[in-house]
């Protein structure tokens, strides 16, 4: 019998039936779901899928915010040897349509009316037989024969279970290591999304590596640990953290109400293991800064004093690989009692014993701030195609600016010619779904995965990532510039949300900059600058000057080729629905170029005119 996510959950339900597997907040109360309930529901849903004619190898799609039903459906599909396909709840209709038809899903879980509408508008989906919806609000008058409520699905499952006892269990025991458990569609900054196939073997290797062979936190993650699930579950990082760790280590998953309520939910849940993308860390940092700045005079002075200490602590810790010295330990202990404990509590990070950032590059300043206030930060590196494990900064051996060392059992090397990072290990994916061409481009015959990232070794142990290979800017002068490093330096300012550096084939670098509405809004209010909309605020002379200061500051830390000579303010907040961002909030450079073409050109024209 193959050990898999499903058997791990079954084992937990047997050994600790009353332990808390997850919590979901409804009407202000966190309802707890035990392991026994989790497993029981999974079996019911599994039977329901069988009764709907789902065969091993078939695809089951889910398009929903994070909630227990996502996990029930995911694990149930895997239990009957089918494949789960996750869709972003923010995917517009066109993308939803593409993903459903490309994956050929036969059952689709659409969370609510919004998601159901997308499917119904998606056009011809011959393979889709059943659309399950969790929330019935607004759907009463819909009469599409494919629609089925979650309750009806469970009822169907129970009937099938009574008629065919053990049918699901038999399939669970028949699972093979090469069964594809999920298709993770990569966000696709270029071209349509590609579905990476991850197998039972991939998942097992991940869990064995980061939980058992070389646990990423000490003591190893276990049933006493709490996590907050808030990033889209169809993204590989959140899936690993929520579904896989939950099954593998028994961590308690707490579902945030939505991405907007994360700060509030963080305070309530006080997770012990916390992963966030750079965007969230930047936002947390900005929130802390604003709230401290707008506190009363005494609190402000007090905070300023301890934040200066934190700067020092952060520097020492960063220089020392994240380990305390006797002196920093003493300073931190006093500071913890008087300030850091309270600050971390308000931010919801008081009990975090392992914090991590990944999925995109992050500015070292942000990491250092959190290290300074006592949050043990670790930058990780991984991608969909290797199930999000490759390298990680290990506790006590942290190097800022790098993504850490390769895990045990993982081979990482850098291609001598192109500088591309290659990885090889059992968690490397089985290929792209129905796209052997792309698979061949990414996966070499001897098992090396081409990550598409350019990197270099630091001290022979730690990996530093320069940038995405295709994002590297080659200026008209022939210099290679990594834009993301400059962009992150800009985004480390609490006032800047988006920064897009431009300059490929141009004489010099320029940037499009989007402000952070909350912080700049508060800043403007303090200075009594009246504004109406995002655009209005962006175009204020004072705001331009504020951004100019940040740009000058960043420029002073870069050599002349890497300096931003000119910038323009983005007139709107970038958005997934408008096609400017991917579902994971990464900027689509091609779309930006097309959409703000005039703005970009004006930066180069203006300079030439000025020179003339």
């Amino acid at each position, binding site marked *: 019998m193959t050990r898999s996510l499903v058997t791990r959950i079954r084992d937990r339900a047997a050994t600790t039936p*009353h332990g808390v597997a997850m919590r979901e907040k409804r009407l202000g109360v966190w309802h707890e779901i035990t392991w*026994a*309930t989790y497993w029981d529901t999974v079996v019911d849903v599994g039977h329901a899928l069988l009764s709907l004619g789902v065969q091993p190898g078939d695809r089951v799609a889910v398009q929903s915010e994070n909630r*227990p039903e996502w996990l029930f459906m995911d694990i149930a599909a895997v239990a009957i040897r089918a494949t789960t396909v996750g869709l972003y709840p923010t995917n517009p209709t066109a993308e939803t349509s593409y993903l459903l038809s490309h994956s050929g899903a036969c059952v689709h879980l659409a969370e609510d009316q919004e998601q159901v509408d997308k499917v119904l508008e998606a056009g011809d989906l011959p393979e889709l037989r059943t659309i399950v919806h969790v929330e019935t609000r607004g759907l009463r008058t819909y009469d599409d024969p494919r629609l089925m409520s979650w309750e009806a699905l469970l009822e169907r499952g129970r009937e099938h279970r009574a008629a065919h006892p053990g049918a699901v269990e038999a399939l669970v025991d028949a699972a093979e290591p090469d069964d594809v458990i999920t298709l993770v569609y990569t966000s696709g900054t270029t071209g349509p999304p590609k579905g990476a196939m991850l197998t039972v073997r991939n998942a097992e290797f991940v869990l064995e590596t980061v939980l058992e062979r070389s646990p990423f936190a000490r003591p190893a993650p276990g049933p006493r640990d709490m996590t907050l699930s808030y990033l889209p579950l169809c993204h590989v990082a959140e899936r690993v953290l929520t579904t896989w760790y939950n099954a593998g280590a028994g961590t308690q998953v707490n579902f945030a109400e939505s991405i907007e309520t994360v700060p509030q939910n963080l305070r309530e849940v006080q997770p012990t293991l916390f992963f966030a993308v750079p965007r969230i860390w930047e936002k947390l940092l900005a929130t802390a800064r604003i709230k401290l700045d707008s506190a009363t005079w005494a609190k402000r002075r007090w905070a300023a004093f301890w934040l200066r200490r934190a700067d020092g602590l952060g520097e020492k810790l960063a220089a020392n690989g994240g380990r305390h010295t006797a002196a920093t330990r003493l300073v931190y202990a006093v500071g913890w009692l008087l300030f850091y404990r309270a*600050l971390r509590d308000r931010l919801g990070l008081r009990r975090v014993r392992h914090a991590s950032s990944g999925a995109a590059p992050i500015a070292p300043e942000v990491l250092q701030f959190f290290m300074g206030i006592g949050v043990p930060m670790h930058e990780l590196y991984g991608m969909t195609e290797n199930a999000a494990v490759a390298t990680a900064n290990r506790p006590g051996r942290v190097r800022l600016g790098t993504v850490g060392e390769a895990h045990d059992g993982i081979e990482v090397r850098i291609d001598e010619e192109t500088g591309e990072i290659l990885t090889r290990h059992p968690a490397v994916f089985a290929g792209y779904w129905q796209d052997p061409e792309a698979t061949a481009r990414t996966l070499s015959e001897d098992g090396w995965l081409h990550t598409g990232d350019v990197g270099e070794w630091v001290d022979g142990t730690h990996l530093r990532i320069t940038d995405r290979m295709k994002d590297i800017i080659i200026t008209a002068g022939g210099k290679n510039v990594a834009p993301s490093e400059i962009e992150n330096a800009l985004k480390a300012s609490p006032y800047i949300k988006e920064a897009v550096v431009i300059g490929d084939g141009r004489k010099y670098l320029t940037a499009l900059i989007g402000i952070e509405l909350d912080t700049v809004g508060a800043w403007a209010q303090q200075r009594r600058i009246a504004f109406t909309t995002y655009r209005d605020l962006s175009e204020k002379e004072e705001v331009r000057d504020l951004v100019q200061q940040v740009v000058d500051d960043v420029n002073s830390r870069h050599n002349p080729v890497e300096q931003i000579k000119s910038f323009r303010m983005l007139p709107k907040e970038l958005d997934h629905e408008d096609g400017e961002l991917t579902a994971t909030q990464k900027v689509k450079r091609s779309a930006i170029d097309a959409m703000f073409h005039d703005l970009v050109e004006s930066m180069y024209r203006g300079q030439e005119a000025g020179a003339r």
Partner: protein
Amino acid sequence: MTATRTRRLAPLGRPELYTSYRQDMALLNTRSKMLGALGVLVVAALMPLMVSDNLLLILASGLVLAIGAIGLNLVTGYAGQVSLGHAFFVGVGAYTAAAMAGDPDGRYLGLGIDFMPLWLLGAGLVAALCGAVVAPLATRLRGLYLAIVTLGLVFIGQYFFFEWDELTGGSQVGRDAAKPVLLGIEFTADYGFKGGWTEEQKLYWLFLAVLVIAALVARNIARSRVGRAFSAIRDRDVAAGVMGVNLTRYKIIAFTISSFYAGIAGALMFSASGHFTPESFNLLLSVQFIAIVLIGGVATISGTIMGAMLIALLPRIASELPAFVPFLSTSASEHPNIFDFEQIMYGVLIVAFLLFEPRGLFGIWHRVRTYWKSYPFSY
């Protein structure tokens, strides 16, 4: 589908992680609140062993005032029905208790019921009955009009108390108050069945016990369906009515419960002095209760208790003042004297609190708590 386990408290160290509605609504929903309440209770219970009998008597009178004021806060603070007639219900309670416990062969009306809980309950119930009779007024009137009408109640009451000699002993004469005796313990005597405790100590403990029960009941009323209906009526009676709150019913309930509390307070108010006259139940007493509610904080129980203690201690504070303020005299014939000061302080405190801290002492406490709760932020 999802099994829900209920737990009394949030998982350790996560006070805001409510896993059940019951836990969310619990009176003491966090460990720190639980420990704090326990601490206050222990200090309050040990007070008689720590302070002099003089001061203890003042504190004890504060406890009784608190019981009455909690009643007023339920009707005025929670349900928003301004009542200036509280003194009347206190009087009804005092006379009911005195009559029930009084000597059947004495000069005045007496039923000879020695069992304290019985006359205490009787005093509450008769007052509650009066409250229920008066309550329909409140369903017809609101705001200022209700205040004036309830003010009339005080004067009607005074007339009855002055003229009904068989019950009250008449103006300036008065009658003995009900003597608290329970299980052979005479609370008003300096000897007990185990000896040792003084009259003041025993009375203090008795009042404290009654207050704790009264406060707990009030808090539970406030957080129940009834309490929510009260708040809805206070915030906007028309809106409450539209939401399905039966205005007549809940206004009657508010007055009835409030009067019950007043009756209990009246029954105990004169235990220490042992004698009282009809003059006690004048407008000033009503104003005193209003002052407690405003100073303590509208719609809070703990604030009411704080307010009652402050008002009870006011004479004592005034008498201590000449040591610091040389021009204040302790003699009643000279001006300005401490008695003037005490009278003025009522007014000054009410005006000051309404202007600067409308939420009363509780508001101050709340502010202090928020300061530290939000530390190191300000919100």
